[in-house]
């Protein structure tokens, strides 16, 4: 049994807007990340992927985002109970984050060398300037940027190189956990392939665990060990990458998501998208959150929120798989999803 690095238990997060609307961003998220693994968090805009990452970093917007309930355990310690001072020691040191847009996550008025060094200076006050410079050079070489460019400013670099610099910053203190929020979405495919390959190598080298947030199932298949599919603030399916991509039983939303991507490997005439839109996050829904759009929706789905149907490491949050429904339907074909 490998070691748990991070465990999220029943996390509820809410945003309060100016006109006192309450937005239910996360509604009971549970997940476990083991040491050295890459965990993919997949879902569409507004599913709660970034909110999950910001909660782990304790960076939810002030006075707007609130954790209502739940625990986030990092190596057995609940980080939601830590003081801001304790948290500051963790951020960038034990847990660091890469944001989606490399153009806006670098400071335009400092050189890139200075910015990579900043995190080292903060977390290692005893380190001499000379040592920091050596470390910065080392990080730049690791991400494949010539050290001659240390004194250049972010605008002098291309998008792919900026993302490499952001990765160098995030990994400078050798964090245990790296949160990568759509790290390659803003990049072109050939550059995306370069960055993904590099991230995989660095993860091995630095023995870092990673949570990769993405909407691209191709990227997930490429580098993740396990995957959670999120929908409207809930994890509706979770499992190893083999279970999500190859098992027979899936949540109807997962099937819809796969049906929406044009398949490069075969010819399809029409795509099979999911009808409708994600539910309004301000509405409290008692039943299944996907019921409205679900092609297999039953009476019970609109009333009671489903439990997780568990088989080994594969969990599906859907009434179709709970025991009593199974008995009702018997062995009727079509119960299993293809």
């Amino acid at each position, binding site marked *: 049994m490998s070691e748990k690095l991070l465990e999220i238990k029943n996390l509820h997060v809410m945003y309060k807007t100016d006109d006192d609307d309450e937005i239910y961003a996360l509604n009971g998220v549970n997940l476990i990340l083991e040491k050295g693994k890459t965990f993919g968090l997949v879902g*569409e*805009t507004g599913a709660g992927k970034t909110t999950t990452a910001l909660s782990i970093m304790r960076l939810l917007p002030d006075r707007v985002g609130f954790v209502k309930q739940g625990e986030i355990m990092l190596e057995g310690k609940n980080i939601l109970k830590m003081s801001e001072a304790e948290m500051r020691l963790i951020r960038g040191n034990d847990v660091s984050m890469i944001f989606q847009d490399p153009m806006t996550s670098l400071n335009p008025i400092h050189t890139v060398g200075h910015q990579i060094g900043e995190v080292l200076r903060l977390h290692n006050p005893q380190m001499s300037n000379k040592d920091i410079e050596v470390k910065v050079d080392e990080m730049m070489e690791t991400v494949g940027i010539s050290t001659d460019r240390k004194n250049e400013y972010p605008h002098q670099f*291309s998008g*792919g*190189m900026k993302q490499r610099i952001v990765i160098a910053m995030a990994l400078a203190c050798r964090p245990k956990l790296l949160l990568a929020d759509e790290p390659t979405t803003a990049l*072109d*495919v*050939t*550059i*995306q*392939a*370069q960055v*993904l*390959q590099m991230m995989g190598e660095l993860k091995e080298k630095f023995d870092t665990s990673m949570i990769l947030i993405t*909407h*691209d*199932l*191709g*990227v*997930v*298949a*490429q580098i993740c060990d396990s995957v959670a599919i999120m929908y409207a603030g809930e994890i509706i399916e979770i499992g190893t*990458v*083999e279970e999500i*991509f*190859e098992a027979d039983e899936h949540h109807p939303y997962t099937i*819809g*998501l*796969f*049906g*929406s*991507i*044009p*398949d*490069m*490997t075969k010819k*399809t005439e*029409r*795509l*099979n*998208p*999911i*009808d409708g*839109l994600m539910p309004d996050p301000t509405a409290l829904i008692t039943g299944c959150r996907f019921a409205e759009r679900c092609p297999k929706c039953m009476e019970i789905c609109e009333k009671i929120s489903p439990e997780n149907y568990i088989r080994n490491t594969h969990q599906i949050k859907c009434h179709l798989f709970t025991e009593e429904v199974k008995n009702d339907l018997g062995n009727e074909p079509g119960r299993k999803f293809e």
Partner: protein
Amino acid sequence: MTIPMIQTINLKKYFTTPKGELHAVDGINISINKGETLGVVGESGCGKSTLGRVILKLLEPTEGKVLFEGNDISKYNKKQMKNMRKEMQIIFQDPFASLNPRMTVSEIIAEPIKVCKTIKNNSEILEKVFDLMNIVGLAERFVNTYPHELDGGRRQRIGIARALALDSKFIVCDEPVSALDVSIQAQILNLIMDLQDKMGLTYMFITHDLSVVKHISDNIAVMYLGQCVELASTDELFDNPSHPYTKALLAAIPIPNLKHWKKLNVIKGEVVSPINPKPGCRFVQRCPNAMPKCSQEGTKLTEITPGHFVSCFLYK
């Protein structure tokens, strides 16, 4: 032989910048037959959007011709062009920036009709608007809403309805789905394809997403730094990619299927600047098959098998 709907002959568009001449579109020869879709793929900055705009004469070409049903529209004056605009429309990438926030849905859709005066009676215009909303799958209750009240998928439907308002024959789709989530993207792709079946539209579909372009196109042109490096039918291009850049592009896409898992084949380097490009092949710095002559002389599109054109010295 039938006359293609759109044909470009040695089409060029250069922009003057303080650092020199930016070759955004550099000698493109393509043609699109009636009722077909040409997919144009390439990475950011390769000139695919500029090409779309030059074909529609939203930008004046620096050199070369654009033939619409055999007529050279690059020489047309403003008045002639205004007439031509009824035949050709564009759907933009960003459904948030391409709709006027101060106009309602019906005003946006009716605007081209009012500008071109194809229908003069107000109640008939409104009828047409409802008709169009119906075609693109927008509920009638949205007729008086403003764009900010709607989500990305619905906004893109407005953009499509506006492009259809003049019963145009040719539509340039400039990354119409890349700002949308996958499930919404699939709805819009289905809509765009259904409209083609129903109305016999001709599309030029610009995208960076190869799986989308494979799904929707009959023919594909691969662009790199302003030039077309490979042009073939969709099946041929994916079965037999020939230009080293096309091969690299295909090898770099992660496929959401574990059975087809492969180590991503990574090409080195990044796209060089399109300002004052050197003679010779523009891909030479990144090309795994580069030869000495590649950096000396330029290449031309050559037919290697019927209908399959490649611009590379490997095939000469």
